[in-house]
Each structure stands twice: as C-alpha cells, then as structure tokens.
C-alpha cells in the first residue's frame, strides 16, 4: 500500500507547519538541558535533532523545513541570542538533515532501517551530516566574532556529539517504529520534494 511519487501538494506545507510547531516546543525546552558555557545556543542533548532527521527521511525538504521552523522559533526570541546566532543555528539544523537525506538517496538506503547496511549508513551519515553542519554553524559564529577559534573546535565537537547522540537515540526509535506507517501516507516523499 505504498504511495507512488507525485507532485508537490499544499499538504506538504501543512506537514512542515504542523511538525515545525511540534519541534518548536522541543527546541525551546532542550536548549538549556546541558548548556555549554561560551557557546551560544549550545546543548548537550538536542532533542529536536532526533525529530527533524526522521522527518526529513519521511518528508524530504518539507521535513527539514519543519526542523528549521521549529528551531528558528524555539531558539530565537526567548533566550536573548542575537539574530545572527539563532538564524545561523536554525540554518545549520536545516542543512544537517538534508545532507543526511542526500546520503540516503545516493546510497538508496531505506529509512525503515531493517537491514544492517541501512543501519550502518544511518549511523555513519548522521555523524557526517551533524559534523558538517557543526563546522558551518561555528564557522559563521567565528566569522562574526561571536566565538574564538578555540571555542570553535569545542563547539564543533560538542555539537557533533550532542546532536549525533540525540539523533541516534530518538531518530532511530522513530524510524524503526513509524516509517512503515508513514510510507502509506500520501505525503511521504521519495525524492527531495515529492
């Protein structure tokens, strides 16, 4: 009962909006779970990452957009960060799951993670994508003079570890338990947009 690949529908935007709102609540309350002194927006265990990585493998671009909306709202207005810091963080949270999606599409891995190959690709691609996003985010912060180069290194390490752990735990749980159901949904995305 899997859906065939169709065009972009208004429902895709609804998916982004609904899950973006859900991610916002999680973003708001995981941001200071493990604050990292000197690194704005740092969190040792970033719950929304596990959500939007799974959402992106289900809904492609629209899932990543949901993560972007959620972290943009959740990180932004409430914690006194400058616009540059939270816009940059939210952009990184948009790029990371898309990199992961690109790896999945390139390797033709299945997000149900039923085989050892799919699970291996998932575990490795999460590290690669979070590390690349971490380097991007902290490079922008470093360029704006928000952090020093010494903190850049620690920021990249902390972001990569924190996001990877959250995605491995929460993302794996979601993908293993819910992907088979999502695949029957008309707005399941097999490419990037549809």
């Amino acid at each position, binding site marked *: 009962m899997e859906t065939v690949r169709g065009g972009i529908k208004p429902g895709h935007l609804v998916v982004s909006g609904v899950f973006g709102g859900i991610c916002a609540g999680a973003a708001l309350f995981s941001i200071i*779970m493990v604050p990292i002194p000197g690194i704005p927006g740092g969190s040792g265990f970033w719950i929304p990452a596990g959500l939007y990585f799974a959402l992106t493998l289900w809904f492609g671009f629209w899932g990543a957009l949901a993560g972007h909306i959620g972290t943009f709202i959740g990180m932004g207005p409430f914690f006194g960060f400058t616009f540059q810091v939270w816009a940059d963080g939210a952009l990184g949270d948009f790029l990371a799951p898309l990199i992961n999606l690109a790896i999945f599409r390139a390797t033709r891995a299945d997000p149900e993670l039923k085989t050892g190959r799919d699970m291996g690709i998932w575990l490795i691609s999460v590290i690669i994508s979070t590390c690349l996003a971490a380097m991007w985010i902290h490079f922008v912060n470093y360029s704006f003079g928000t952090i020093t180069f010494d903190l850049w290194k620690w920021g990249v390490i902390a972001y990569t570890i924190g996001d990877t752990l959250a995605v491995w735990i929460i993302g794996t749980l979601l993908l293993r338990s819910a992907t088979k159901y999502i695949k029957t949904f008309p707005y399941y995305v097999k490419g990037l947009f549809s």
Partner: protein
Amino acid sequence: MANLPLPYAQFFQLVTAIYAAISVIAVLWNRSLEKSSRYYGFSRAFAIFMIVVTVFLVISYIAQATFMGWI
C-alpha cells in the same frame, strides 16, 4: 534569560501537558480509523511521534528540574 510568558518551569509543564494531550488525541484518532483508511498510517505514525516527543520532554524536565533544584 528567557523571555517567556510564564516562568520557565511552569511553561515547560504546560507545554508538556499539551503535548501529552495531543498524544492521547492522536492515539484515540488512530483507534477510531479503519486499517484501510487513507490516514491510518499517518495517524499511527503521528501517535508514535507525539508519544516519543512527550516522553523525551518529560525526561528533559526531570533532568533540568534535578539540575536546577526544582525538585
């Protein structure tokens, strides 16, 4: 620090309660649908998604409450 409409801990509790309520509604919605329904798969996945989010919000609350001395 945070510029929230309620004190952080109370706002956290309120949002967690709302997420829990949405989880219950999602489960009830799924149970009301036939397996042949177009939305059965989505409602099932949505219920799982909301339950997972709510559980991790509760874990986050307990961790922060312990860390910040709310408990």
